[in-house]
């Protein structure tokens, strides 16, 4: 795995997410990007113009390379979004849908 957590997290509060239909365990306080990287998601999206793969680069809200769909809302910055119980996350292939909250 490319990323791993520094501490063992034995006292962390678990938060359950669904990433691309797959149940994923995160921790309270994680961002969506951190939680996805921690479970081995390597490609977050494909770019609208060339279809090139993208993953988080800056992890601080600047690069916009970590855009994902969160609870039906497209183009959400995964690195700026705290995880919440039951959150549904989908990867985007190309440009976002015109619809969506």
């Amino acid at each position, binding site marked *: 795995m490319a990323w791993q957590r520094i501490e063992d997290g034995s006292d962390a509060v678990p938060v359950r997410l669904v990433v691309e239909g797959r149940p994923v365990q995160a921790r309270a306080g994680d961002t969506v990007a951190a939680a996805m990287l921690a479970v081995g998601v390597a490609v977050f999206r494909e770019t609208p*113009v060339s279809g090139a793969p993208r993953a988080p680069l800056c992890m601080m809200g600047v690069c916009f390379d970590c855009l994902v769909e969160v609870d039906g809302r497209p*183009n959400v910055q995964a690195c700026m979004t705290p995880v919440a119980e039951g959150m549904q996350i989908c990867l985007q292939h190309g*440009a*976002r*849908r015109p619809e969506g909250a």
Partner: protein
Amino acid sequence: MSGAANDFGDIDTIVVGGGVVGLSLAYGLKKAGERVLLLDEGDDAYRAARGNFGLVWVQGKGLGCPAYARWTMQSAAAWPAFADELRERTGVDVELSQIGGLTMCLHDDEMAERAAQLTRLRHDLAQAYPVEMWDGAAVRKLIPQTGPDVVGAVWCPLDGHASPLRLLRALLQGYDSLGGRLAAGSRVEAITPRAGGFHVRTTFGTFAAPKVVLAAGLGNRTLAPQVGLTAPVAPNRGQILVTERVQPFLRHPTLYVRQTGEGVLQIGDSKEDAGFDDGTTLAQLSRIAARAVRCFPLLERMNIVRTWGALRVMSPDGLPIYQASTRHPGAFVITCHSGITLAPQHAGALVDWILGGTEPQPLQHFKAERFDGMATH
């Protein structure tokens, strides 16, 4: 006066202005075999060609001057071949689409006003003019994402759009591939008529040529009088918002909202006298965004990624100025505010005229003399 860096022997025509108008002319002149030097001021210039909306637009043009409607329709008709030619020569796809465009109306009185204008223009034109007034149901049938506030639209099957930035790149590459010379970062300081032509003094040196074509946008105002011409143009600011890229849903351009080839929604409908301030204001941007959301409610949830202001180059009546100097033969002034729509005419018919061909019939309506005696600011 210092001497020129060249003699009159190696440049036939100097084109002043590297925007879409100047590049269309320079490209056309080069294609016709002229030895051309293109002078481009630099990135601190106002650069209307980099800030515009990208419509290839027929409807609504020529009210009170049917010659302008005809000139525009000729150019729109020439666009497909022009785009093909640029693609073949440069490999650049300018994203031309001419499948018809709409002007959305949000009020019945707006519909009535536009219908009256259409009736008048059709009467003046006395030729086939395929523009129609559509009711809201017809608009929603074509574009289901249209909002309930839209009461109707003006539809014109000749209307379309293109990428203005890709067009600039194609013209520049085409010009370059033909051996055209470009002096970038050269602001013209003075033009002096001389025996056999003109000396053009720039920040980059002085150049001499028998012909000089002024296509410097707002800069034409001060350059034209130096060669016996006038160009009473003034800045008119437009503000534009662009969204993140979105899957295609709006194939037809509308006057204020269009989706680009790469999926961006481009939105803009302001006309302001703001002098030479090409910035943006929250008040205008909010108004533009609110109107766009009424036309297409799903825009409400899209992220705006960029906004800008740009200055249109407007003559007092909004029509182009195309004029040859009688006092200093060989000097021309060319200016308009529809440089995208008119690019094929500029690269074609206008170039033929500059090179001594017959003056296209509509040009008699576009002389700057029509402003003689009127107060301009």
